[in-house]
């Protein structure tokens, strides 16, 4: 086997680790120094006392052996074989590459049994749809587990705990993280591998405080390229540019210089900051052992290879600078050792696992396509293969005949199926909470329904890296009955922005306000789901004295409304309680309209300005397609316009107009008068709308305060765990079922029981007993039937007698009877006859049915399993 192994793998000598090399060099240098000044150095060196490394028994967590299945505690023969194989492989590697670090092949499991790493991967597809995609699975693993750093950080761990146990204890080291994630990914159909290698300190300790929080990364806006202006044949020439070309040139030159200067400054600044933020130098750089996950392209439509960092759940590109080297990779079927130079980190490594010049595989059943070899070499290769097979079989025929026919394949995983309860999955993090620190940001995650107010994550952004100067807080909510999803609090400006899901009354979508002035009539912006609103309101912006509303898709083409408020008139004398609600006086209102194509432009109002304070109304019309100026009109309100019931007079001086087209006939006075009336109505309407808006704002704010105080959470009707009502309902159903069952049991009363009891409930009936039992049973029924018939008969007779008596009595006393008595008698007769008739009916029916019942019982007895053997 050895020789075949040697033949198969073309193991190349690789450069030893850089670090070791460096150390060698320094030693050499010191050696040279020694010749120069030996004595002094000797004395110096004598001071150094080298202690033998004290082997520290690392305190390993003990597990209760009882709770594991036997596969954890022992090895199958095949597993043993694989372990031997691995040991053999290890020895060869050591032989060939003396300065290579040991491989991570067969650590002990939680029961202290050696297990091969490939068999520790247990591909599993859990029932949660979030885990079907790699990002969801990676995020879950990162959230669900707590990190146990390797101790010491430059040595491979001695123990690898099975993913099932890891899920239970919710913590693990990088190898355990990766194994679990890999199990999930392979289960979901990805081509995933665990990588054992080296990484930076930040990666190994999951220190993200130098990374920008992924939630804060701005999505790259896809800039729509400005539509290139089509050059048409008849495009007009632009007006001639009469500016001096030279001056323009000078100017642009100056501009460019300025720009360059700025750019330079910015770069310098950036560099300075980068320098400041650089992590301190790491003494173990390049030695820190780490494990992460590799996903190869091909399966599940993955277009490109990438790494997944199990601690953070983020993907990294193939040339990531976080990873410094790779020793080996494995999945559940094979183990590959990297033969490539990692002095440049992982940049440029080939992940063609079928290429045996760069990846030394352990098991020959390599399902990876081998490197394609041009046709010329094909024959040669074939021959080699044949020879190889021949040699391998000839050598091993003696002892391991059964092994010869096929290569050794990987035994199934020894790990129990991974299980995750719905509750645990929803809790997400250990105890439902997790805090992560990023560069100038802190992210706290909470399980759904854990927090009373529905908070699921909170991202705090800080100005400085020490996380002392809070800038803004981003809070995400779920399941809130007030549909709040996000809340952004800017601690610098005091601005608060709340986002809501659709489905609220009044269709609020976004609400921005200042936390210092949350009351009405202050600065705020409200954005609405305008599709759901009857008035098509999109946005309402308020300041202390102004309000602007934007609309869309209205039938009256209104799209903009602006209101300017005046100050509340101060009232002297007794304060009225209603005055506070009455609202501020309106100084000015502006309404703007879109063009209504059904009207001529000259009559289609574009803008109305109600100068309420000045009693003026100003109208601008739309511009006609061929014109550049718009007609305008201005009305002065009649003096007594706000008096109720007053007849409004009109004179031509109240109206001024500018008509773009002087040829148009002048409007008639009546028309103007009617227009003015319309405008007054419109003003009133607009004023009412403004008041309504103000009330709406007030109502929304009231609602918000109430909701904030209550902070109720919605529970889905399908969520049987949390939904109290549903739970009750289910319990009720269960109870009913139980009752039903009980009743059924009662129904199935054994009709033979009393008779059996009579003969003392014997285990087995003799023939005689059976016969007598049957006879008795039937006799009993007969008796009962006869009894019943007699009973009915007796009643029948009694009724008839009574009737006869009554009739006799009636005949005697008929003359002296009053009308009431007579009536009573008649009703009695009627009832009695009815009763007799019924009894008669029952009797006949009983007579008819009795034989049937008898037969039925006989049949039943015949079929009764206790008696059937005798009949």
């Amino acid at each position, binding site marked *: 086997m050895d020789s075949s192994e040697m033949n198969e793998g073309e193991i190349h000598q690789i450069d030893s680790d850089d670090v070791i090399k460096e150390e060698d060099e320094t030693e050499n240098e010191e050696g040279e120094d020694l010749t120069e000044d030996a004595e002094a150095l000797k004395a110096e060196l004598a001071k150094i006392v080298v202690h033998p490394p004290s082997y520290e028994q690392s305190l390993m967590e003990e597990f209760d052996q009882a709770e594991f299945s036997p596969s954890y505690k022992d090895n199958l023969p095949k597993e043993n074989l694989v372990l031997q194989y691995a040991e053999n492989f290890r020895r060869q590697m050591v032989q060939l590459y003396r300065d290579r670090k040991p491989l991570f092949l067969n650590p002990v499991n939680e029961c202290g049994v050696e297990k091969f790493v490939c068999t520790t991967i247990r591909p599993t597809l859990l029932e949660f749809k979030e885990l079907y995609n790699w990002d969801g699975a990676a995020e879950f693993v990162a959230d669900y587990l707590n990190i146990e750093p390797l101790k010491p950080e430059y040595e491979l761990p001695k123990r690898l705990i099975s993913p099932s146990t890891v899920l239970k204890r919710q913590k693990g080291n990088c190898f355990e993280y990766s194994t679990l994630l890999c199990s999930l990914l392979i289960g979901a159909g990805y081509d995933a591998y665990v990588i054992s290698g080296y990484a930076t300190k930040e990666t190994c300790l999951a220190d993200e405080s130098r990374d920008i929080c992924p939630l804060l990364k701005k999505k790259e806006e896809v800039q729509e390229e400005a539509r290139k202006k089509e050059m048409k044949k008849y495009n*007009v020439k632009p007006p001639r540019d009469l500016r001096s070309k030279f001056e323009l040139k000078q100017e642009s030159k100056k501009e460019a210089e300025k720009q360059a200067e700025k750019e330079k400054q910015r770069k310098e600044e950036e560099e300075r900051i980068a320098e400041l933020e650089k992590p301190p130098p790491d003494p173990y750089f390049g030695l820190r052992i780490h494990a992460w996950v590799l996903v190869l392209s091909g399966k599940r439509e993955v277009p490109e290879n990438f790494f997944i960092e199990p601690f953070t759940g983020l993907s990294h590109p193939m040339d990531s600078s976080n990873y410094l080297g790779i020793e080996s990779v494995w999945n559940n079927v094979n183990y590959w050792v990297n033969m490539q130079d990692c002095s440049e980190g992982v940049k440029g490594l080939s992940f063609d696992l079928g290429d045996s010049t760069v990846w030394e595989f352990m098991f020959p059943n390599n399902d990876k396509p081998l490197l394609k070899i041009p046709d010329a070499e094909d024959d040669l290769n074939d021959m080699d293969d044949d020879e190889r097979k021949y040699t391998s079989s000839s050598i091993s025929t003696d002892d391991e005949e059964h092994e010869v026919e096929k290569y050794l394949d990987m035994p199934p995983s020894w790990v129990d199926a991974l299980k995750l309860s719905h509750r645990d999955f929803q809790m997400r993090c250990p105890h439902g909470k997790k805090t992560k620190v990023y560069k100038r940001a802190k992210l706290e995650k909470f399980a759904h329904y854990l927090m009373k107010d529905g908070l699921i994550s909170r991202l705090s952004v800080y100005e400085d890296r020490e996380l002392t100067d809070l800038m803004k807080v981003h809070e995400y909510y779920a399941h809130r009955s007030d549909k709040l999803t996000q809340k952004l609090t800017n601690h610098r400006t005091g601005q608060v922005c709340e986002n809501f899901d659709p489905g609220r009354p009044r269709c609020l979508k976004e609400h921005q306000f200042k936390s210092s002035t949350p009351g009405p009539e202050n600065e705020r912006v409200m954005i609405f789901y305008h599709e759901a609103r009857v008035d098509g309101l999109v946005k309402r912006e308020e300041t202390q004295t102004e309000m602007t509303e934007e609309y869309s898709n209205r039938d009256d083409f209104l799209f903009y409304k602006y209101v300017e408020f005046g100050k509340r008139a101060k009232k002297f004398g007794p304060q009225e309680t209603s005055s506070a609600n009455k609202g501020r006086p309106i100084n000015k209102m502006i309404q703007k309209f879109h063009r209504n194509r059904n009207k001529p432009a000259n009559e289609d109002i574009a803008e109305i300005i109600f100068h309420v304070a000045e009693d003026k109304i100003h109208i601008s019309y739309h511009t006609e397609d061929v*014109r550049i100026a718009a007609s305008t009109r201005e009305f002065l309100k009649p003096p007594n316009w706000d008096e109720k019931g007053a007849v409004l007079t009109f004179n031509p001086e109240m109206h001024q107009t500018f008509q773009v087209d002087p040829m148009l006939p002048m409007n008639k006075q009546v028309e103007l008068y009617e227009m003015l*009336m319309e405008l007054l109505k419109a003003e009133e309407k607009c004023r009412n709308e403004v008041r309504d808006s103000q009330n709406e704002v007030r109502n929304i704010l009231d609602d918000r305060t109430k909701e904030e105080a209550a902070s109720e959470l919605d529970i889905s009707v399908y969520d049987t765990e949390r939904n109290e009502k549903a739970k009750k309902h289910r319990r009720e159903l269960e109870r009913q079922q139980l009752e039903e069952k009980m009743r059924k049991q009662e129904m199935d009363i054994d009709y033979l029981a009393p008779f059996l009891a009579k003969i003392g409930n014997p285990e087995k009936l003799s023939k005689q007993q059976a016969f007598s039992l049957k006879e008795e049973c039937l006799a009993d029924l007969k008796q009962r039937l006869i009894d019943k018939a007699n009973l009915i008969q007796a009643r029948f007779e009694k009724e008839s007698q009574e009737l006869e008596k009554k009739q006799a009595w009636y005949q005697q006393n008929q003359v002296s009877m009053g009308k009431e008595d007579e009536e009573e008698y008649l009703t009695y007769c009627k009832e009695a006859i009815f009763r007799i008739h019924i009894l008669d009916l029952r009797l006949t029916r009983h007579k008819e049915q009795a034989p049937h019942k008898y037969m039925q019982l006989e049949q039943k007895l015949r079929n009764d399993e206790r008696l059937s053997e005798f009949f």
Partner: protein
Amino acid sequence: MSRLYDTVEPAVIDEEMLKKAVEEQGPKEEAGKIAKQEGIDFGDVLSLRLDFLNILKIDNLWEFTKLTKLQLDNNIIEKIEGLESLVNLVWLDLSFNNIEVIDNLDSLTKLEDLTLYSNRISTIENMDSLLNLHVLSLGRNQLTDLENLRYLRRFKNLKTLNLSDNPFCKQDEYKQYVIAFLSNLEFLDYRLVDQQSRDAAIEKYQVSRDEMLHNEKQAEIKKEDETKRQQELEKHKNAYVELMNGPDLFEQMYAEDKEGQKLNEMPGLEDQLHSFKEKFMQICTQIFDFGIAEHEKREEEVKSFWECVEEAKQDNKRLGMVHIDEFTETKKRMLLEMSQMSDHKMVEQYARDYNDKIQVLWDKLMGLELQLVDQLEEVIKEFERNMQDMVGTFVENVQALLSQCRDLENNHHEKMMEIAIVTLEKVIKNELDDEISDDLKMLLVDKDTIINAVSSSHDVHLLKIDNKEDDIVTRINQSLKNLIEQIHQDEEITRNRMRVSEINNLIDHLREEMDNLEVMQN
């Protein structure tokens, strides 16, 4: 209906009556007062009620062109007339009159509601153009013929119909008949037509109804085909090559050429004639295809020209509006400042500034306009040049193709001549006595006659071809000229005048505004 107490003199619609009605029905209260002072134009009145006035003849309503609602009920009108100019009428009430014939409603195409209740009408007719009719009331008339109701099928929007108290209502099948044949109706005789009764009625008249529907459909298809053909022909006409894709020109050549027709009966000519026709047709088709292709090209050119002109105008308009908006902003600001000023001198200074600004605005707007004029002029010139080139090529090509036609004709003529002479010889030798008609015999008397006949036929043919050529060339040149003239007129002259007057008007207005302000302040 005739009235028992017709004691009142029949009235005529006169100025006084109209004025009174208009004033009574016009605006009320304050608005009415103003209107009275000012007088109401009959042309502005939207609705008019002239009921219970004993009117005999509808007259003098021509002034009410905007009228949408007219009530002439309860009069003694005998004839529908004098309504031709009321084209905006939507509602017309002529109930309780003495009308006998529906007539003179053709111009009222917007009519939706027509009431002829209680008249003496005996036939439904003369309403072909009232396609928007929604409501029709013909109750209490003299309608007797149910078949006549099929006339109402043409009103697709008719939802409400009243036919009660007509003689035919006494027939049992009246209701079902109406519902079956007017199945779009929603209300009949004041009642909702429910689905059940509709289904029943349709079932009853299934056969005749289906037949009628089928016929209607056929007619519709036919009409559609006809319009399609018309459109096609129109398109070809616009390309100036109409009918060139068929044997039209060829047939025309022989249409007026009686001698040619006779000559074609000569024996031994069939093959020759056949090949001639084929070749001729081929060239015609070429001309046709070429014409259509050229037409599309020209259309494309015109379209792109207009697009660019429109774009240039829009850009210019946008710039102009920006200037005006800017000015309006400054104006607002200045007026505000001025209103707060007390110093007289400062105010004057501001006023001067303002006037300067107006001048600047005028300069800017006029500059823009001048720029646009230049731009358009250039573009139009280029367009004109290109169009002329295109037309030129088209004409040249058509002429070349038609001269090919002429060559063909010449060839044909020579062949004809030969055959004619051969035939003549044969006739002279009495070889073909039985095979030729008498007409042809008349020509085949001597050499001169036959040669003359053949030549004149040839001349006629050439003339036809020449005519076609002339027709195409003149028409295309004429239309090009018209187009260019139109463009010059609309885009250069009219547009420019309008814009300039607009700008001046605006500037005048602004100045005036300022003056008024000063006057007020002083």
